[in-house]
């Protein structure tokens, strides 16, 4: 019995001992595990620190780079703005004094200065982030003042006098420039207060406006009465109301235009013609999509006069299988077929296996350049893939050009050191839209081929063009 008791006590002791040992083991294990986890923890913390550092460095770099870019942009904007304001001030002085000038030379010098002022102002305006609605009126005004000055310089150089009305035009211009100057100076005053930033001010809001645009708001045509400037130049007010002379007759229906395309332009039953829409610009047209033998063409036919105004398509890849001369033949035949009479090729340019051919009416040996029609022929497929007759639609009319001077009289203007390759009688259109009769002299000079257009009634040089090569293609510039 006692023995049994002893055994039982021993067992309990042993059990407790074991328990204590297990606990000790667990604690030891825990300690050991904790000790093992320390390096991992350190690695994780270090990694996190590295990442954090990298993120901070990357952010700093991006921030720094953005800041540098913003500073550079700020410099560009500021330089453009302040130069522009300076030149507005200069322009105001120059246009104000113009009507007080009496000698030809002083007028010429001042007109030259006015052109320079305008060009600097335009350079500034085109760089600054101003929305279109608020910049178009001012840009137009300065372009016109520059164009007007150029036209007046031309007139003075040709030995003509400026009329009183023409001279006083600069007083009207001076008033407008004065208003613009006041607006800018008001804006300047605001800028000098506080830390004005062009970059910050340039950010557009949801309505498409920003601080700079708002500042320009006072220069719209609603706020300033801009004078109409009519002169022989590209930006003349006269060009805004161009008359469509070449389209005459009744207005046709969509069905008529569709039948015309089917029966005359794209002959054959294969042509699938789909009416798309109307285009209602200065020239009103019915627009169609034509599918012929798997190729798509966009075609516009004028509502009045039923004239093909444009055919647009593109060339497939392929090698040229015909010459430019053959393409000219195809182009002339096509133009004649669709109602453009007496059209002859006056220019050929081949680019990427596509021949661009300019056709002009040639009547009684006179080339009518204002009525130019352009035809595009794919030298691979031998198909017409483009046709454009907008100039013809605008300008074609019955004319009786006068050539009061002879070719040899006009040749004198060319000076010397040239070799005439070809001469032609032409009618050309000047930048301002006026047409003149001119002799065309194709001349070879030491530095290349030139085309001179001499007014056949005044003997003045109306236009000079030089043949230049751009990417292997010869162009007249």
């Amino acid at each position: 019995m006692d023995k049994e008791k002893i055994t039982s006590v021993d067992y309990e002791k042993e059990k407790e001992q074991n328990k204590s040992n297990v606990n000790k083991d667990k604690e030891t294990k825990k300690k050991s595990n904790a000790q093992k986890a320390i390096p991992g923890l350190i690695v994780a913390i270090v990694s996190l620190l590295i990442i954090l550092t990298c993120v901070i460095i990357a952010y700093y770099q991006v921030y720094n780079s953005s800041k540098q870019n913003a500073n550079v942009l700020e410099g560009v904007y500021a330089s453009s703005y302040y130069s522009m304001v300076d030149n507005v001030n200069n322009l105001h002085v120059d246009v104000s004094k113009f009507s007080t000038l009496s000698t030809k030379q002083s007028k010429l010098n001042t007109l030259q200065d006015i052109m320079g002022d305008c060009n600097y102002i335009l350079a500034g305006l085109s760089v600054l982030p101003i929305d279109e609605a608020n910049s178009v009126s001012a840009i137009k005004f300065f372009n016109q003042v520059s164009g007007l000055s150029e036209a007046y310089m031309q007139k003075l150089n040709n030995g003509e006098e400026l009329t009183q009305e023409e001279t006083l035009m600069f007083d009207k211009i001076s008033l407008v420039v004065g208003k613009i100057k006041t607006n800018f100076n008001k804006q300047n005053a605001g800028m000098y207060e506080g830390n004005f930033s062009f970059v910050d001010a340039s950010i557009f809001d949801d309505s498409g406006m920003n601080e700079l645009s708002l500042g320009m708001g006072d220069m719209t045509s609603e706020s300033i009465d801009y004078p109409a400037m009519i002169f022989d130049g590209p930006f003349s007010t006269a060009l805004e109301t161009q008359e469509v002379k070449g389209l005459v007759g009744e207005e046709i229906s969509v069905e008529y235009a569709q039948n015309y395309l089917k029966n005359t332009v794209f002959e054959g039953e294969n042509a699938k013609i789909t009416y798309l829409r109307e285009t209602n610009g200065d020239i009103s047209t019915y627009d169609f999509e034509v599918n012929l033998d798997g190729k798509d063409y966009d075609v516009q036919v004028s509502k009045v006069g039923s004239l093909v105004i444009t055919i647009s398509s593109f060339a497939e890849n392929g090698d040229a299988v015909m010459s430019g001369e053959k393409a000219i033949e195809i182009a002339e035949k096509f133009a004649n077929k669709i109602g453009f009479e007496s059209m002859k090729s006056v220019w050929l340019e081949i680019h990427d296996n596509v021949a661009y051919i300019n056709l002009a009416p040639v009547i009684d040996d006179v080339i009518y350049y204002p009525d130019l029609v352009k035809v595009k022929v794919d030298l691979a497929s031998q198909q017409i893939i483009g046709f454009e007759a907008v100039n013809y639609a605008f300008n074609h009319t019955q004319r009786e050009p006068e050539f009061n001077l002879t070719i040899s009289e006009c040749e004198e203007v060319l000076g010397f050191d040239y070799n005439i390759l070809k001469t032609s009688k032409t009618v050309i259109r000047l930048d301002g839209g006026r047409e003149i009769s001119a002799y065309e002299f194709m001349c070879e000079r030491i530095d290349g081929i030139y085309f001179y257009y001499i007014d056949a009634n005044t003997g003045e040089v109306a236009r000079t063009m030089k043949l230049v090569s751009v990417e292997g293609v010869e162009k007249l510039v």
Partner: protein
Amino acid sequence: MKKKILIAFLLLLTGVMSVFGFAAFNNSVKLEEKSTPTIATLEPAYAVTADTKEVQTRLKKWGYYTGNVDGINGPKTIAAVKAFQKKYGLTQDGIVGPLTAAKMGINLNQSSSSSNYSSNDRYLLAKVIYAEARGESYTGQVAIGAVVLNRVEDSRFPNTIAGVIYQPWAFTAVNDGQINLEPNQTAYQAADDALNGWDPTYGCVYYYNPETATSSWIWTTTTVTQIGKHVFAV
């Protein structure tokens, strides 16, 4: 446990590499953008304007001018011009105006709105066409090119293709950087057509996508036509 720590460490390292990689990529993109090649113009459009150097070169060749061809319009150059003018019965003012220039065979008729387009212009035009209208029909692409060129000819906008395209906020593609995408062959063809006078919009200077246009002002323009997603207006 060790494995887990190792994986976590590797993941973190990947993250770090990504951050640096992104920064490096960003820089390389910037460099690429900066170094986008442009096709060299064989002869600039202003090659025939009368600058002093050109006048001096010609006068020197003809024996009127004995100084250096330095582009400075000094007394020697003016005297040479006057001598030339005297010889040809022109007003002896020493200024190379249109008559004197014509006698010298120099063109002064380069207007600021000239349509003297260069290969740079072709490239820029193709870029803007591709960026703004690559999903449109061919005619729609030509129309975008035509609008750019119409703006060049219009007094209300800058007078060069580059000036029109990069006029701040004028084209979305410039703002969002899509202008830097390389144009495809169709865009080049459309640019060529536009440069050769094709204008399906008949003189439009504005276009917009009516579904996405935000400016209220654009709705006040006069619509001429719609080609694809774009409405064209004057």
